[in-house]
C-alpha cells in the first residue's frame, strides 16, 4: 500500500467521531472491521451479493464491501454494535443488558431467527433500514427488502417472522418483553439459543474476526487449470518481496505430505501434478494480506497442461488418463440387494426405467474458511479453526502432517458460520500451523469467497440409472439401480477397510448410499450397485443430507409414474409400500424403533386432500401461462452413521455451576443450547445454573465428530447419562452431609435439599468444595456404545407436499405452499427444531431448482443458486410425528438432515403435475423445464431411453 496516497478520513461511527487514514482502494468494510475493530459487520461474499456487510450510512442501508472508505467521509454510520444505542437515542452503549436491546434484536432472539449467526448483523441492519422508513411493513415488503441478504441456515422464515414482530414492538412503543434467554425451562421448551445474544449484538467472534498481536497473514496460490504436470515452482522472487516472512511448498511439509487415511492421497501441496482447478500449490505468509497477495503473483509455476475429465462420462471413458498412476479412475462396484431382481421384474405389471443426474454442489456456508495458528505459553500449538471433527481431522490429522503428536496440538472452534459438511478440510489449518511453526508468529488465513467457491471440497455429482417394477395393485416388487458417484480427485472407496469404521470414518461411503437405494419402501427384490469415479473436479465431501438426497429424484418420480399408469393416487401408492415397524430393508436391517413414515403420511393426508381441492379451483381460474400443480415426496436418511464409543462429561464448577462438556461443535445447529437443556432437565434446575464447553479438544476432550445427524441422539444421550451420573454423585455426597437418605433429596437452582423439612440443604458450591477437600473430582462421564446394525443405526423419515405454479412460457417455478412432516422423536427445543426444518427445506428447494457448480465457470453465491427470501414458498407448515426413540435422550432423534429431502421430489413431481413435463436432471431450471415442455429431452445432452411398459 502506498502510504503517500493514504487519505485522512473522518467518520461518525455509532455516534463517535473516528479519524483514520485509508488508501482510496480500501473499502468501508475493511475500515470498519480492521481499523475500527468492529467485527460485527461481516465479510461473506465481498462482491455485494449477500448483504452480510450492510451498515446504515445516513439511515440508508449500505453494502460496506462495495464502498471506498473515503466515500464515507463525514458520514454518519451505524453498525450492529451501535444499533441498540442508536435506537435509545442517548449515549447509552449496547450491552448484555437485555433491556438495552433494539426491538429487532429482541425479536430475533424471541423468534429463534438465528442459527450460525453469520448473516444476522447484515439482516438486522437491512431490516432496521426498512423499519426506519416504514414501521408497518407487510410480509411481502419484508421479504422483498431482505431479498438481497443471503442466509444458508435459517430458510428465512423465522427471520421474516422476527422483522414482522419487531415492527409490532416498535409500533406498540411499550416496555419491551424480556427475551427468554435463561429462563428455567428445559426439554420441550422453546428457549432462545444461549449463543444468540452474542450473535445479535455482533459480538460473536468467527474465524476472520480473531486477531493476535503481530500476526502474519497467509495466502494460498491456487491452480487455474484442471489438470497439469508440474515442472517447477519457483518462489525466490516472492520471497524477496519486503514484508514476506515465509513461503511454503510441498518441500516444507515435515510430516506425511498428504492427509492421512485418504487414498488416493490428498496432498497438502502437490509435488508433481495438479489435479483440479483451485488446488493449492504454495502459500505465503506476510505482514499484511496485500503483501501476501502481491508476492503470490510472483511465484512462478511452470507446468504442462494435461487433458482433463470433469464430466463423469469422460472420466469413465477407458481412453482417459488415470488421475493417479497405477490406479483406475473407477472403483470396484459395490453391490447390495435382496431377493431375485429378475424374478421380481417378471412378476411386475408396470416397469419404469430412466436415468437421472445430480450436479456437483457447494456448501456455501456464509462464513468462508479460516484458521489462526499460534504457540501458547505452554508450547502447545493452538489452531483456532472450524472443523466438524476437531479430534480426528483436527489434532490427529494435522499432527500427522506436522510431524508432531496429537497431544501437542489444541483445536479450538471459534463461532462457526455454517458447516453443512464443508468443515472437514484441514488443509488451511495445516498451512496456518506450518507458518506458525516456521516463523514463531501467529498466522491467520482467511479464504476469499471466490477462493472458497473454487477451491473448497464439494458434494459429488451423481448419475443414476433406476428401474422400478410394480404389480397391478401398485405393490413394488423390484428395484434395480446403478449409481455413479463422482468423487472428484478424492475417492473414499479406497480408505482401507480397517480404518473405515469408528474414529476414522469421516466419510460415508458407498454402502451408506446404497442402504438408501429403495427409498423408505418395502421392496422384496432389489439389486443396487454403485461405484466411485475420479475426475478433475473438486474434491468430494458430504453435504447436508448426503447419500439420502440423490435417489429420491429417481424413486419418487417413478412411484408417481407407476401410480399414473395404474390410475392410483400418488398418496396411496406410498402408503401401500411404506416401510413400517418390523420391516426388513433390502440390506437385511430390521427396523424396530421409531419407524414413522406411515404416521407422517397420515398427518399429511388432510393437507393433501385440501391441496387437491384447491388445485381444482386454481386450475379452473388459472391465468394464461401460470399452471398450478401439487406434488408429494417422501425420503429417509440414516441417523448416526458411526460405530464407535461416544462420551461426554458433567461436573460441578468451583463456583457452583453444573458444567457439561462435549466434543461436539456448534455450527449453528444448536448443541450449545440443546445439551444444556438435556442436562438441566435431568437435574430439574434452570438453565442459568448450567455452563457448557464444546468445540475445544483440550477443555472438552471427548472425541466425537459433529456430522451425520449424531449430535442430539448420541452426544445428547451421553450428556444425559453423564448428568444422571453426576446427579447420583451429588445426591450421595449431599446425603452424607445432610444425613438424609439420597432418595429423599432433590435439586433446585442453589443445590440439593431434603424433600421433607426443606431447611436442610447444601449448595452446589459447598458440594464442590467438599468434594475438592476429599480429593475427589466431580467429573462424571456418560458413555454410549454405538454398535448397532450396520451400516445405519436408524433412520429419520420425511414426507412433504408442495403446491406450486409453473410458467409454461418461461419455465419459471413459483412455490406457493409447502407442508413438511418429520419425526424428531421428542422435541427438545421446538423453536430450534423448526429452524432446522426451515433450513433443510431451503436446501431442498435449492437442490431441486437452482444449485449447480461447475469448475469451468466458478459461480458467485447467487449464480450458484443459494435460495433467497423470494425463493422460499409463500407458506410453510411443519408437522411433527413424535415416536420417541428409546435410545435417544428423552426419546429425541437428530433432525439436521432429513427434513430437507421431501421438497426435492415433491417439487419435481409438482412440476409434472402442473405441466406434464418430467425433469430428470436437477436443478430444474427454467431452461430445463421449458425444454422438457418442448419435449426436447436431448437438450441437456443426455439421451433418455425412457421405457414405460404396461
Amino acid at each position, binding site marked *: 500500500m502506498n502510504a503517500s496516497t493514504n487519505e485522512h478520513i473522518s467518520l461518525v461511527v455509532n455516534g463517535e467521531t473516528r479519524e483514520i487514514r485509508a488508501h*482510496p482502494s480500501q473499502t468501508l468494510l475493511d475500515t470498519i472491521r480492521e481499523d475500527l475493530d468492529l467485527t460485527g459487520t461481516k465479510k461473506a461474499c*465481498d462482491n455485494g451479493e449477500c448483504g452480510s456487510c450492510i451498515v446504515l450510512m445516513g439511515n*440508508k*442501508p449500505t453494502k460496506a464491501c*462495495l464502498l471506498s472508505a473515503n466515500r464515507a467521509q463525514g458520514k454518519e454510520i451505524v453498525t450492529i454494535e451501535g444499533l441498540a444505542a442508536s435506537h435509545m437515542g442517548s449515549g447509552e452503549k449496547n450491552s448484555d443488558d437485555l433491556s438495552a436491546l433494539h426491538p429487532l434484536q429482541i425479536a430475533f432472539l424471541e423468534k429463534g431467527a438465528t442459527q450460525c449467526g453469520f448473516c444476522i448483523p447484515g439482516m438486522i441492519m437491512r431490516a432496521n433500514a426498512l423499519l426506519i422508513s416504514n414501521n408497518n411493513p407487510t410480509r411481502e415488503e419484508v421479504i422483498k427488502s431482505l*431479498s438481497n441478504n443471503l442466509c444458508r441456515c435459517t430458510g428465512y422464515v423465522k427471520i421474516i417472522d422476527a422483522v414482522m414482530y419487531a415492527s409490532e414492538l416498535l409500533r406498540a412503543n411499550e416496555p419491551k418483553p424480556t427475551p427468554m434467554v435463561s429462563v428455567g425451562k428445559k426439554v420441550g421448551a422453546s428457549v432462545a439459543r444461549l449463543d444468540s445474544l452474542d450473535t445479535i449484538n455482533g459480538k460473536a467472534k468467527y474465524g476472520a474476526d480473531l486477531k493476535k498481536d503481530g500476526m502474519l497473514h497467509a495466502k494460498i496460490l491456487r491452480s487455474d487449470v484442471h489438470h497439469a504436470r508440474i515442472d517447477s515452482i519457483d518462489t525466490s522472487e516472492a520471497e524477496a518481496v519486503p514484508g514476506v516472512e515465509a513461503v511454503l511448498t510441498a518441500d516444507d511439509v515435515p510430516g506425511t505430505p498428504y492427509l492421512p487415511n485418504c487414498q488416493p492421497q490428498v496432498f497438502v501441496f502437490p509435488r508433481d501434478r495438479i489435479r483440479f482447478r483451485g488446488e493449492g500449490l504454495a502459500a505465503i505468509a506476510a505482514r499484511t494480506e496485500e503483501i501476501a497477495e502481491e508476492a503470490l503473483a510472483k511465484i512462478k509455476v511452470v507446468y504442462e497442461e494435461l487433458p482433463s475429465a470433469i464430466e463423469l462420462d469422460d472420466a469413465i471413458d477407458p481412453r482417459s488418463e488415470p488421475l493417479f498412476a497405477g490406479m483406475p479412475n473407477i472403483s470396484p462396484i459395490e453391490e447390495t440387494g435382496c431377493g431375485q431382481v429378475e424374478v421380481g421384474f417378471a412378476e411386475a405389471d408396470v416397469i419404469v426405467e430412466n436415468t437421472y443426474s445430480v450436479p456437483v454442489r457447494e456448501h456455501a456456508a456464509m462464513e468462508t474458511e479460516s484458521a489462526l495458528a499460534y504457540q501458547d505459553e505452554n508450547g502447545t500449538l493452538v489452531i483456532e479453526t472450524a472443523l466438524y471433527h476437531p479430534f480426528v481431522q483436527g489434532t490427529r490429522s494435522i499432527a500427522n502432517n506436522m510431524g508432531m503428536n496429537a497431544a501437542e496440538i489444541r483445536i479450538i472452534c471459534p463461532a462457526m458460520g455454517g458447516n453443512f459438511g464443508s468443515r472437514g478440510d484441514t488443509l488451511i489449518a495445516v498451512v496456518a500451523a506450518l507458518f506458525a511453526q516456521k516463523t514463531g508468529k501467529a498466522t491467520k488465513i482467511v479464504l476469499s469467497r471466490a477462493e472458497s467457491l473454487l477451491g473448497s471440497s464439494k458434494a459429488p455429482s451423481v448419475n443414476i440409472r433406476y428401474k422400478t417394477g410394480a404389480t397391478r395393485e401398485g405393490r413394488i416388487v423390484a428395484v434395480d439401480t446403478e449409481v455413479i458417484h463422482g468423487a472428484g480427485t478424492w475417492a473414499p472407496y479406497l480408505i482401507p477397510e480397517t480404518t473405515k469404521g469408528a474414529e476414522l470414518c469421516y466419510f460415508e461411503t458407498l454402502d451408506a448410499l446404497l442402504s438408501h437405494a429403495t427409498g423408505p419402501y418395502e421392496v422384496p427384490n432389489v439389486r443396487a450397485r454403485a461405484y466411485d469415479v475420479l475426475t478433475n473436479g473438486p474434491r468430494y465431501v458430504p453435504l447436508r443430507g448426503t447419500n439420502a438426497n440423490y435417489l429420491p429424484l429417481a424413486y419418487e418420480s417413478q412411484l408417481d409414474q407407476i401410480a399414473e399408469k395404474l390410475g392410483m393416487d400418488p398418496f396411496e401408492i406410498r402408503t401401500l409400500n411404506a416401510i413400517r415397524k418390523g420391516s426388513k430393508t433390502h440390506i437385511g436391517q430390521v427396523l424396530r424403533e421409531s419407524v414413522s413414515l406411515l404416521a407422517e403420511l397420515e398427518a399429511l393426508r388432510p393437507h393433501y386432500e385440501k391441496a387437491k381441492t384447491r388445485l381444482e379451483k386454481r386450475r379452473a381460474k388459472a391465468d394464461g401461462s401460470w399452471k398450478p400443480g401439487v406434488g408429494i415426496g417422501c425420503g429417509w436418511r440414516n441417523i448416526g452413521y458411526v460405530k464407535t464409543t461416544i462420551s461426554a462429561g458433567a461436573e460441578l464448577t468451583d463456583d457452583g455451576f453444573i458444567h457439561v462438556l462435549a466434543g461436539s461443535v456448534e455450527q449453528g445447529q444448536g448443541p450449545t443450547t440443546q445439551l444444556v437443556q438435556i442436562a438441566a432437565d435431568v437435574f430439574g434446575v434452570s438453565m442459568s445454573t448450567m455452563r457448557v464447553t464444546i468445540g475445544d479438544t483440550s477443555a472438552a476432550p471427548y472425541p466425537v465428530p459433529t456430522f451425520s445427524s449424531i449430535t442430539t441422539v448420541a452426544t445428547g444421550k451421553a450428556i444425559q447419562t453423564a448428568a444422571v451420573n453426576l446427579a447420583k454423585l451429588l445426591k450421595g455426597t449431599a446425603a452424607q452431609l445432610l444425613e438424609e437418605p439420597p432418595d429423599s433429596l432433590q435439586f433446585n437452582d442453589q443445590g440439593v435439599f431434603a424433600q421433607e423439612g426443606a431447611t436442610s440443604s447444601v449448595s452446589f458450591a459447598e458440594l464442590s468444595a467438599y468434594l475438592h477437600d476429599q480429593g475427589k473430582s466431580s467429573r462424571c462421564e456418560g458413555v454410549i456404545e454405538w454398535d448397532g446394525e450396520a451400516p445405519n443405526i436408524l433412520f429419520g423419515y420425511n414426507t412433504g407436499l408442495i403446491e406450486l405454479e409453473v410458467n409454461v412460457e418461461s419455465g419459471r417455478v413459483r412455490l406457493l405452499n409447502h407442508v413438511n412432516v418429520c419425526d424428531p422423536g421428542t422435541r427438545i427445543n421446538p423453536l430450534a427444531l423448526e429452524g432446522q426444518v426451515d433450513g433443510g427445506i431451503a436446501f431442498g428447494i435449492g437442490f431441486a*431448482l437452482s444449485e449447480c457448480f461447475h469448475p469451468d465457470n466458478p459461480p458467485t453465491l447467487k*449464480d450458484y443458486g443459494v435460495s*433467497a427470501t*423470494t425463493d422460499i414458498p409463500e407458506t410453510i407448515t411443519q408437522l411433527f410425528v413424535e415416536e420417541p426413540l428409546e435410545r435417544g435422550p428423552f426419546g429425541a432423534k437428530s433432525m439436521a438432515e432429513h427434513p430437507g429431502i421431501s421438497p426435492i421430489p415433491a417439487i419435481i413431481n409438482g412440476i409434472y403435475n402442473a405441466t406434464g413435463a418430467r425433469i430428470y436432471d436437477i436443478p430444474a431450471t427454467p431452461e430445463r423445464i421449458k425444454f422438457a415442455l418442448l419435449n426436447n429431452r436431448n437438450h441437456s445432452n443426455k439421451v433418455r431411453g425412457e421405457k414405460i411398459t404396461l
Partner: protein
Amino acid sequence: MHDFDYEAPVDLDTALRFFAERNGSARVLAGGTDLIDQIRLGRYAPDLLVDIKKLPELNVLECQEGGLRLGAAVPCSEIYRNETVVSGYEALVDSCRIIGGIQVQNRASVGGNLCNSGPAADSPPSLIVLGARCVIASAQGQREVPAEEFCTGPGENVLQQDEVLIEIRFSSRPPRSGSHYRRFTPRNEMDIAVVGVGASVTLDETGERFVDARIALGAVAPTPLFAREASESLTGQPVNDETIARAAELAQQAARPIDDMRGTKEFRIHVTGVLTRRVLAAAIGRARGEEEGTRIGH
C-alpha cells in the same frame, strides 16, 4: 488490491484534464459498485481514480421543454424518486428499480451502468428505446452519440482515453407513448439478466395503431442491441396479437446470444420472444394509460 491515486475534482475542466494527462491509466469512479469489485478481481489496474460525484454537470436531473437531462453520476434511486421522470420515461425507471437492489441503487448510476458496457446491463435497452443521446466530453470539447451506438463490445464502448460520459439526454415524449423494460432471470433475486427487453411505443389517437415503436435487447449479443427490424415492423401497423408476434419473431432473429452458465443460446432466443411480447403489451398498456396489473413479475 492494485494501488492507485484518487482525486475528487469539483469542476469538470479539472476532471477532464486528469484524463487528458493520464493517457488511459485513469478511470472514472461513479457509484463504484462495479469498479471496486473489478479492481479487486484485477480486471482493471488504474493508476488514478477520478471521483466524479462532486461535478455539478454530472449530477443534473431535470425535465425541461426539450426533454430530460440526466447527469451521468445521478444514482438510480434518485431517478425513480423523481416523479417528473417517472411520468414520462417509464422504461428508464423500470431499469433503475432493477439494477442491483436498493443498497446498490443508492449509489449505482445509469451512466456507470452504461460505461461499464456489460452486454447484460439493465439500463442500455431502456436508453435505446427512449432514444437517448450520450453526451461525451473531453478537454477538446463535447460530442453526442446515440445510446444504441455507445457500446462496442463486452466491456467496450466509444469513449476514448481522454473522454468522460457526462450526461444522457432524452427528447420529450410524444403523447400516447408508453415504455417498459423487463428482464428474465431464472430466480427472483439474481443480478444478471439472461435476457432483457425494452420497448417504447407511440400510438395514434384511437390507441389501436402504432405510430412509432422501438425495441431493444440485452444479454443476447456482445452489446445491447437495437432491434431495428422488429421496431420498424410495427410502424403504422394495427395493435394486435399478430403484429406483436411478428415483432417478437424479428427480435428473436436479431438476437445473437451465446451459451453460458446462466442460459443456453436456444433458451435465450426463446425467452427473447416471450419477453418481447410481454414488454410490448405492457408498453401499449402504458401508452393507453391503462391501470398496471399487480403481477408484473417475470
